[in-house]
């Protein structure tokens, strides 16, 4: 045992365990994405009283894998007038960035690849880079519709990032830390400790701010990930499919996987920031501590997954319910409503922390 612990402390052991963790998280997310994609289509079909994909495998469970092979086996078409290097680079950047962000996400206590001090800032930084995949793809295609789609998308993502950043500041103010693990442990215990409900007994009046702020974050997440009703970059009735018109085969697949990984990532963010992360919410901390470690960690992990899937279900429902926004409405919502609203929320939470709770 002694030898084993010292091996994991050496650079080689550390590298091995980190690479193992990265592989585990990446593969886990990729497999979950396959089924979440199917769930998205099933929910959409259910709202429209259709059956959805139900041919490949039982209940259509293998549909995503069939799609995967279809994409991979097709020929890659690179337009003649395109900038070839940038054209290939763009989907790779989208794909890689969508997965790099997961490094800071804690799935259960301590189950995180990189427990960063500046976790939230890291996530903001990575998600602000996501726009490059889209702009580069749109520009490199050297075609009108992709370029228009890329411009729309860039403006949209930059606009909603501002209000998202301010909303995250309210969460930072609640916990006094940018470390995601700290933010989740602060919401431990029962569900009224969650940030969405004001974050505990001492700060319950903040529910007046935190509940609407959670909804604003949810809507911003829709806009940030280009989901309907804010899917203007790929509005198929206006722009065919936006920045990805010229893409086919595997590069298109990478764009699509990246997009869905971002959506699920936003669901994980909603879980961690507002709805208590891995904390079940109906079991006390003492009870969780009394359980054997493997049972407790199973509960933690399952709670995290259930909450993330719940938020994904909400996002899938929005796609089925809400008609697409007009571009000026989108910009108005982002700059004239969400931005002042979240700014007021930051000031209110900060004032509460200073004057009501005490320094």
């Amino acid at each position, binding site marked *: 045992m002694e030898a084993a612990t010292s091996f994991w402390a050496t*650079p080689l052991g550390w590298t091995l365990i980190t690479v193992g963790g990265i592989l585990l998280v990446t593969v886990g997310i990729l497999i979950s994405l396959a089924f979440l994609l199917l769930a998205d289509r099933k929910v959409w079909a259910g709202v429209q009283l259709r059956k959805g994909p139900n041919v490949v495998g039982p209940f259509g469970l293998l549909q995503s894998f069939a799609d995967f092979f279809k994409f991979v086996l097709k020929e890659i078409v690179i337009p003649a007038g395109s*900038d070839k290097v*940038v054209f290939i680079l763009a989907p790779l950047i989208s794909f890689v960035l969508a997965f790099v962000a997961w490094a800071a996400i804690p799935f259960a206590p301590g189950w995180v690849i990189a427990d*960063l*001090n*500046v976790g939230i*800032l*890291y996530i*903001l*930084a990575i998600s*602000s*880079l996501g*726009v*490059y995949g889209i*702009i*580069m793809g749109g*520009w490199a295609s050297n075609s009108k519709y992709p*370029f228009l789609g890329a*411009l729309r998308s*860039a403006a949209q993502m*930059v606009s909603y*990032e501002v209000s998202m950043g301010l909303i995250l500041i309210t969460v930072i103010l609640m916990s006094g830390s*940018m470390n995601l693990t700290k933010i989740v442990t602060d919401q431990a215990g029962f569900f009224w400790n969650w940030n969405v409900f004001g974050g505990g007994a001492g700060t319950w009046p903040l529910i007046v701010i935190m509940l609407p702020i959670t909804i604003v974050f949810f809507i911003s997440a829709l806009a940030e990930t280009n989901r309907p009703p804010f899917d203007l970059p790929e509005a198929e009735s206006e722009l065919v499919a936006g920045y990805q018109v010229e893409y086919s085969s595997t590069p298109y697949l990478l764009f699509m996987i990246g997009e869905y990984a971002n959506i699920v990532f936003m669901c994980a963010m909603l879980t961690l920031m507002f709805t208590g992360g891995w904390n079940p919410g109906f079991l006390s901390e003492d009870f969780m501590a009394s359980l054997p470690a493997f049972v407790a960690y199973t509960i933690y992990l399952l709670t995290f997954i259930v909450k993330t899937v719940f938020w994904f279900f909400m996002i899938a429902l929005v796609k089925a319910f809400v008609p697409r926004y*007009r571009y*000026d*409405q989108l910009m*108005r919502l982002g700059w004239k409503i969400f931005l002042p609203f979240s700014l007021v929320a930051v000031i209110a939470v900060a004032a509460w922390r200073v004057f009501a709770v005490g320094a």
Partner: protein
Amino acid sequence: MLQGLAFYILATIAVVSGLLVVTARSPVHSVLWLILTFFSAAGLFVLLGAEFLAMLLVVVYVGAVAVLFLFVVMMLDVDFVRLREGYARYLPLAGIVAIILLAEMIMVSLAVVQGGAASAALAPAALPEGVSNTQSIGRVLYTDYIYFFQAAGIVLLVAMIGAIVLTLRKRDGVLRQDLAAQANRRRVDAVEIKSATTGAGVKPEELL
């Protein structure tokens, strides 16, 4: 050892991509190399233990400023042949400026080495336990340097208002979206149902 390796890799990427910013043929490629330079600089900050500054560099420069650069460069069709016309004419002047800059940089680095600033004795003090560099930057910025911080904010605000004023122009005859009017529109205001005889058809002027 690993840190040293990471430093040399990041520094090499930063220098090479910085060079490519200047030499790249397409302006869009220049901006993309510039983004890589920013990114490696952020990596160097992380190696120094300044993770807050590193993330800020990525959020502000890569996430916002470079996106605007890319936007402008993509929209403007920059004609590089015309830009390069004066290359030979300006080369002597540019060479003089470059030589002066090089001499200054050598002088500064000599001064640093002789003053002992590069020695380990003057390395930045380690942070006290439990204080992250986010907290220490915040404390310094909002207490000791609050007036400078506010002044910088006001300068930015003035610049922003100035840009808006310069580009603001009022034009007549422009249709604008009035969301309140659109949302308040009711069916009775917009639609009127008139019965038409079957088979006879309707002329537009009869409907009015």
